[in-house]
């Protein structure tokens, strides 16, 4: 699975953020999601989706080796994490998210829930399809 | 000619039909409006018509065996 994005289809609904936070923290809290939606309004009137592409920059800078790659996915070991946020600064996409209630930054682990529940096909599995032509439903 | 009328949304409350589908038999090709009339459905209650998934108006003549999906008026808010 690889996250593909078609931002032109994003409606800004935030369902992706809800299923993400519920899936990982069992909390209904989009601020604990591992992706971020930003609107560009009034012009040009589109949404941008920021989500991890598993580049590994975070793992390179972690001083305690808390970030490791497994099956193509970089994951944070929250027990090893010391909360220094070096990875947050190093992330080129700004997708290591900090929440005051969590020591370790929040990072996408490629669980695929956002792909499954994006109502618009704006987030899709790039390994399965090039780009979705029409939105779901 | 045989058509399947698929009734969707609030129209189902007005037009009782088994699982929302009605089979209509007609002796010759007819427009959607005529087919609706034959099925006892007031065409004014149907706002949008899809014939085999394509949006059509009520004057369109569907092919034999077509599925005609009828959406009631969007309620406008």
């Amino acid at each position, binding site marked *: 699975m690889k996250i593909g994005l078609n931002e032109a289809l994003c409606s800004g*609904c935030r369902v992706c953020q809800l299923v993400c936070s519920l899936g990982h923290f069992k909390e209904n809290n989009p601020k604990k999601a591992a992706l971020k939606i930003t609107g560009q309004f009034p012009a040009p009137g589109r949404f941008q989706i920021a989500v991890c592409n598993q580049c590994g920059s975070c793992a390179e800078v972690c001083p305690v080796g808390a970030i490791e790659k497994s099956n193509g996915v970089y994951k944070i070991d929250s027990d090893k994490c010391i909360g220094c946020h070096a990875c947050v600064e190093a992330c080129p996409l700004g997708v290591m998210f900090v929440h005051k209630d969590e020591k370790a930054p929040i990072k996408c682990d490629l669980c695929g829930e956002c792909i499954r*529940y994006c109502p618009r096909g704006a987030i899709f599995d790039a390994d399965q399809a090039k780009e979705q032509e029409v939105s779901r439903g | 000619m045989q058509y399947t009328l698929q009734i969707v949304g609030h129209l189902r409350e007005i037009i009782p039909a088994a699982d929302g589908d009605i089979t209509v038999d007609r002796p010759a090709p007819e427009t959607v409006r005529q087919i609706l009339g034959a099925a006892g459905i007031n065409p004014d209650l149907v706002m*949008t018509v899809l014939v085999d998934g394509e949006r059509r108006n009520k004057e369109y003549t569907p092919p034999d065996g077509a599925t005609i999906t009828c959406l009631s008026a969007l*309620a406008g*808010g």
Partner: protein
Amino acid sequence: MNGYGGKILRIDLSVKKSATVPLPEDLAKDYLGARGVAARLLYDEIEPGIDPLGDKNKIIIASGPLSGVLVPASGKVTFASKSPATGGYGDSNMGGMVAAEMKYAGYDVIILEGTAAEPSLVIIDDDKIEFASAAKYWGKGAMIAEKMLKEDLGDDFQIVTIGPAGEKLVKFACVSHDFGRQAGRTGIGAVLGAKRVKAIAIRGSGSIPLADPDKVIAKGKEMYDACFTNPAAKEWQDYGTAGVTPWVNEIGSFPTKNFWTTYFEKHQALTGQVMRESIVVTDKACFGCPAPCGKYSHAQSDKYDVFVEGPEYETTALIGGNCEMPTIEDVAYGNYLCDELGLDTISGGGVVAFALECFEKGIIKKEEVDGRELKFGDIDSFKYLVEKIAAREGIGDLLAEGVRTAAARLGGGSERFAIHIKGLEWSGYEARYAPAMMLAYMTCDVGAHHNRAWAITHDVAVGREEIAGKAPKVIELQHIRPMFDMLGACRLLWVEIGFPLHHYPEILRVITGYDYSLEDLLKISEKVWNITRAFTIREYGRFDRKYDYPPARFYEEPIPTGPSKGHYIDMDGINALLDEYYELRGWDNNGIPTTAKLRELGLDFLIPDMEAARGK
């Protein structure tokens, strides 16, 4: 409390202080949230007879137990206040992101009291409440101000603003949010303006507690999957509410030329299809919605180049048909002007059309409009009038009061075509050939608005000539639709794609633990219906059915052209509709809830006020 932010935030603008109290469990159980809680609090806390634009009015902002949770379309917040337009109960609900964000910050209800000494911002950042000067933003358009505030405070703040019209206390000023969503009706923007609040900024980082998280996840996902596979969802998303424009014209109920007639010859230029092909840029959703109805558009001509969310159906009806605008671009531009000025497009379109008809009839003279030749179908006339209104300049100062007051002052017979009920201008369905819809408008609790009961299909289904037997459907809808307004979710999935109602008590149960059936929820809706009616009756003092009557145009003038030509509902029909309705509602001949009915509903606290009104 599961499903809730947990707190009421009370803000005293006069002394720049705030206090929080826990949301009382009884209030939540008895009234659910949003409109329900707001209506009860407003009845309890507003002293009858106060000036809606004065110090003692309050604005209640309330989300519901579904808001911000994994539930399709869980983004609705209610703004409630004593309405400057009608002098009675006013509420308006709004989509976007605020309903969710305020719950993440921990608040189910925010109450604004008093008056700020100077133009102010209220900044709510979890439990930190700040008051700041709005000098930099005062006078700016509603969306320009939102953009500036997002840049100044942070993009993750959700911002609510008023435009210049709210600052100038225009009676139909709206509340704006998320670059294109509004709490449009009943003039709550003017109440904010009177309190000198330019904007409210909210940011929340918390989680909403859930009674059974695993079941919420499962049930929420089930609801989303049901939306994904609904065959009507694609059609709905393609056009949003604008999809209904051709149908309303075909059946001859489209507001045209100040509701003079009901079919607009140029309507084919204003359809959802034309809109999609010519101006739509993005399908824009409210929080949690899988079927975005927002059509964010880019409208260009040799006169303008603007971005606007819309036009949706109401704006297409009231600016398009009612002002006879010939192109979708012009309607979109009219929408943009109203949005930036912070004017309700429904009342705005109604007031402009009224002014244009007055001009045509010589009731408003050229000298009063800077020598201009004002015309239907002319975007420059529309622009001139809304700008004058928002600035309260010239004729704009009178028109800013709404059509009821404007007609009373202008005279010349204009009261016959001041299209309003109780001072709220009529929304997008002309009803002379739709008795159930006429009844819906007459009995709507905030004035001439269709939000509570959209009954026009019922008229088409059972007979448009029929007067008798229409009340039960109207009453049923008046309980179902506001149920969503109490839950803090959007009704349009049910309304537009037939999304089944049974899902709502089911998801409510696993979020809050409240074991309510659908009938229980509708009963609460009936209770709230009587509370909001009672609020208006108490304000009006001496109430009789004439306050429910439509304008004379509707009971005296047959529709002159189009598919519904010749039809209208005379006074006998109007009274027959109300007779049946009041009887079924358990209200007396003047539309005042009876003591027996109030007892039956457990609304004993309303009995003294309603007996007093009855005695007058």
